[in-house]
């Protein structure tokens, strides 16, 4: 008799105990082939995230001029957008036109800073109109000016990259150096195997 009574009491206790707030697990794994489902299942969370705090040590880098294909119009860089440059860690000062020999990543970052300094970067008016869909999304989510402006993908014409031949050759030579280094590495491995 007592046993069922104890059991019932235990069940009631478990049911009435406060539990920690339940949170959905955010999955960042893609769903292959499922274009209907968004790749990232929590776009709402992203919009609600506060703007990443600006790191005062990093200077405001200028965006890359992105030029549209010849059949379409010119689209200029937007200062509100993040630059494309993979900058060095915040502790490294911005240096333009560095000619010293650095690691491949640093050399690539320095090369890209040289690119930014060489390109003309006309300003885009800050009051340039955003697409109506973007405005509705921003208003609905209560975002402020900190949220980066997003173009509608469906309205985006083909793109090209504005790069001088000089910089293109620099990147090409870096790629060639990487290729030769990898070939040397493979040759060394092969010689080690043969020597065993």
């Amino acid at each position: 008799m007592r046993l069922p009574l104890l059991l019932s009491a235990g069940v009631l206790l478990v049911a009435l105990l406060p539990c920690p707030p339940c949170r959905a697990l955010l999955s960042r794994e893609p769903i292959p082939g499922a274009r209907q489902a968004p790749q990232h299942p929590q776009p709402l969370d992203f919009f609600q995230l506060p703007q990443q705090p600006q790191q005062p040590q990093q200077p405001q880098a200028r965006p890359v001029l992105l030029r549209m294909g010849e059949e379409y119009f010119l689209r200029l860089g937007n200062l509100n957008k993040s630059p494309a440059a993979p900058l060095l860690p915040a502790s490294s000062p911005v240096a333009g036109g560095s000619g010293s020999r650095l690691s491949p990543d640093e050399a690539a970052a320095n090369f890209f800073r040289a690119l930014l300094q060489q390109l003309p970067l006309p300003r885009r008016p800050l009051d340039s109109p955003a697409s109506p869909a973007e405005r509705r999304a921003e208003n609905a989510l209560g975002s402020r000016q900190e949220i980066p402006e997003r173009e509608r993908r469906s309205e985006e014409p083909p793109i090209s990259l504005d790069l001088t031949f000089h910089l293109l050759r620099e990147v090409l030579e870096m790629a060639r150096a990487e290729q030769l280094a990898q070939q040397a590495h493979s040759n060394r491995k092969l010689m080690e195997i043969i020597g065993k």
Partner: protein
Amino acid sequence: MSPSFKLQYHFVLIFLMALRGENRYLELREATDHDPFLLFGANLKRELAGEPLYRRALRCLDMLSLPGQFTFTADRPQLHCAAFLIAEPEEFITIHYDLVSIDCQGGDFLKVFDGWILKGEKFPSSQDHPLPTTERYIDFCDSGLSRRSIRSSQNVAMIFFRVHEPGNGFTFSIRTDPNLFPCNAISQTPSGRFTLVVPHLRQNCSFSIIYPVVIKISDLTLGHLHGLQFKNPSAGCGGIGDFVELLGGPGLDPSKMMPLADLCYSFHGPAQMKIGCDNTVVRMVSSGKHINRVTFEYRQLEPYELENPSGNSIQEICLSSL
């Protein structure tokens, strides 16, 4: 059936089922044991197989010239990114998406362009490429994984991408395949040697060198081989018939470059020309009636050669771009 017989019968059935599963396990083990490379470690096996997969992170602006697996992960919103892909002139490039995690609805995109496009100028030009410009862009957000593997039409390709959310990104693998008759190509190096062959195909083929070079054409065959050389010009070099033209200019698109020389006759023997332009193109126009071939060597012009033009050099057109 007596209960004891039933029990034995069931026991025998259960035993047989278990043994069947065990047998399969043993078969698999035997197959494994017969692997002659089993004694070697996985790394060594891979090394003996020839090619360990090269892997590294992809930068927002990058150039890839070797096969491997490349991963881009946004550490912050990256809105203007592109990767140039280049292989040997006699190779195709195949891009295979291994993993894609981008928010297409949120403005991310991932596009492969069949060729290179720079400042709005395309290589190969619209005239020389089999596909219209719009079809040369393959948008992952449109096609999804239905076009998981994309092969270029020549030795160059580009990937444009935009990723807003940190942590998102993608991984792709690059593989090269042989191209027996390369038609359009960009040279990886400022010096080299190449033979452009167009066998009975009605197409225009360009070989681009993005350096100021001195180019030496050692052999030009316009017409049939095996002794039936056509001595007369190929129905004129005014754009009709088969011919080879040298182009120079400051851009990437051969159709927007200045024609510097037209070669209408077959010849054997070096013909040299210095072209001080940012981009030099050897372009062969073929009607499809003949087998055409041109062999040439090229080397980069030295700075003193650019400053002091000597005979048979064309630099005035491109001086302003240097």
